[in-house]
């Protein structure tokens, strides 16, 4: 047996692979003053370059925390969030822009993080599903998803909720039809669509401050 495979004993105790990835990411999180990020963005030189195997410095804000990282240019924002920063709430479904499981907000706008290179997000403010709740208080749309049973396996749910919050904020949650159209970028293999639409409609009607 190959030595690199962990024995069942090693797998069963101690650090999980996920924890290892979190530690090895060496993310430096410092509490954020917004001006730090803005300044970093303003100071962009005329050219920034990273060589083939080089990692390049990247500063971005995730859920209100500033991260200073070293990344390979080919790392996607999705992989950065999950594997380097350790925020595994954002899911990888297709990794090809087709399912929406990886939806996050960049400066308040929803995008598919699987098709965005991490380095393209220098100085940006990222919000993931982990950033929606205020402490123990869930976001109104999270509450509505629970109330309406808007998921089965839950794999698409973080993407659905991030997309749903944006859908409401964009003013595209006026009717069930409009919600269906503007949520079409989020697929649900379990088919929880009717309840997802209900949850978004109710949250919109509640007029909650999102």
């Amino acid at each position, binding site marked *: 047996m190959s030595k690199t495979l962990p024995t069942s004993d090693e797998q069963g105790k101690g650090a999980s692979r996920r924890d290892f990835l979190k530690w090895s990411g060496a993310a430096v999180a410092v509490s954020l003053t917004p001006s730090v990020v803005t300044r970093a963005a303003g100071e962009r030189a005329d050219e920034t370059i990273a060589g083939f195997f080089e990692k390049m410095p990247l500063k971005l804000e995730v859920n209100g925390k500033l991260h200073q990282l070293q990344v390979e240019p080919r790392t996607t924002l999705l992989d950065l969030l999950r594997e380097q920063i350790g925020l595994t709430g954002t899911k990888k479904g297709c990794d090809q822009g087709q399912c929406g499981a990886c939806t996050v907000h960049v400066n308040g706008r929803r995008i598919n993080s699987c098709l*965005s290179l991490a380095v393209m997000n220098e100085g940006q403010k990222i919000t993931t599903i982990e950033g929606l709740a205020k402490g123990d208080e869930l976001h109104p749309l999270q509450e509505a998803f629970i109330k309406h049973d808007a998921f089965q396996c839950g794999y698409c749910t973080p993407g659905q909720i991030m997309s749903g919050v944006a859908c409401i904020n964009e003013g595209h949650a006026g009717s069930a039809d409009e919600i269906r159209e503007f949520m079409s970028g989020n697929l649900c293999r379990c088919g929880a669509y009717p309840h997802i639409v209900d949850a978004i409609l109710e949250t919109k009607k509640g007029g909650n401050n999102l």
Partner: protein
Amino acid sequence: MINFDYLRTASVNATLDAIKREPRAAFIAGGTNLVDLMKRGVTSPPRLIDINNLPLKNIERTSSGISIGALATNSAVAINEMIRSDFPLLSQALHAGASPQLRNMATVGGNMLQRTRCTYFYDTTMPCNKRQAGSGCGALGGYNRMHAIFGASDKCIAVHPSDMCVALVALNATAVVRSNKGERRIPFGDFHRLPGDTPQTDNQLKAGELITAVEIPSNKFQQHSFYLKIRDRSSYAFALVSVAVALSIENNRISDARIAAGGVAHKPWRLLNVEKALTGQPASVETFQKAASIATQGAKGYGQNNFKLKLLPQAIIQALETASS
């Protein structure tokens, strides 16, 4: 994904210098097509030049119409007040494309240069002359339900997948491109090309050229524009057939007509014969039916896509009825 050098530029001149230094480099804008193709090994540029910091995002009125920066996102253009009021066809076409998330990333320049969605192009184990010249066309005798009925060749029957470009060709837009040698303007109808013997080349853009803007001349189509997209599901799918219609109607007579179709050719396909058959005629169902009946002149099916020969005229009639009402 095969690794690459990454370069971020902040000015158009620095970008043009950078592409001159490494002509094999690719620009990256939204990344929604390029990153996907790089992950799948369809393309592997040795260097990416990130152009997102270039000042090319503005949408401005000009003396003759409107100018849209190449880095304006598809969603920014689609919801722009000037675009919605003066060029509703473009806004509709953009809203019909991709998903809200993708439209927030995708740019005007990237949308123009997106590659075909032909499955043989995407699957690197399959023959595809567009991906690998001389390897053959898998779609010719294979799965070709999504493929072209106009202007194809025995080397390639792929279609250009864009919705935005169908509206832009109907609106007589112009692409503005820059290189170290200066600026040139390409009428939209000439921008994309037919496959012929060299399907690996999608368009007229030369090495080292950067798209900086798209210009659309003012028109009188505001009241009577419609983009109809027919696809396998009601949203978030590429077009089987799409039709962009823009009419100017005076005293119930069509004084000017523009029609283009998507999902039918290697380029957004302007239907000049249909436009001619409409112009000067009363805006009636009879006129629409007569004009639509000549839409497929010169068209050819390849088996699985034969249905498009019937679907296109029907789609044209429906789009004309909606636009004229």
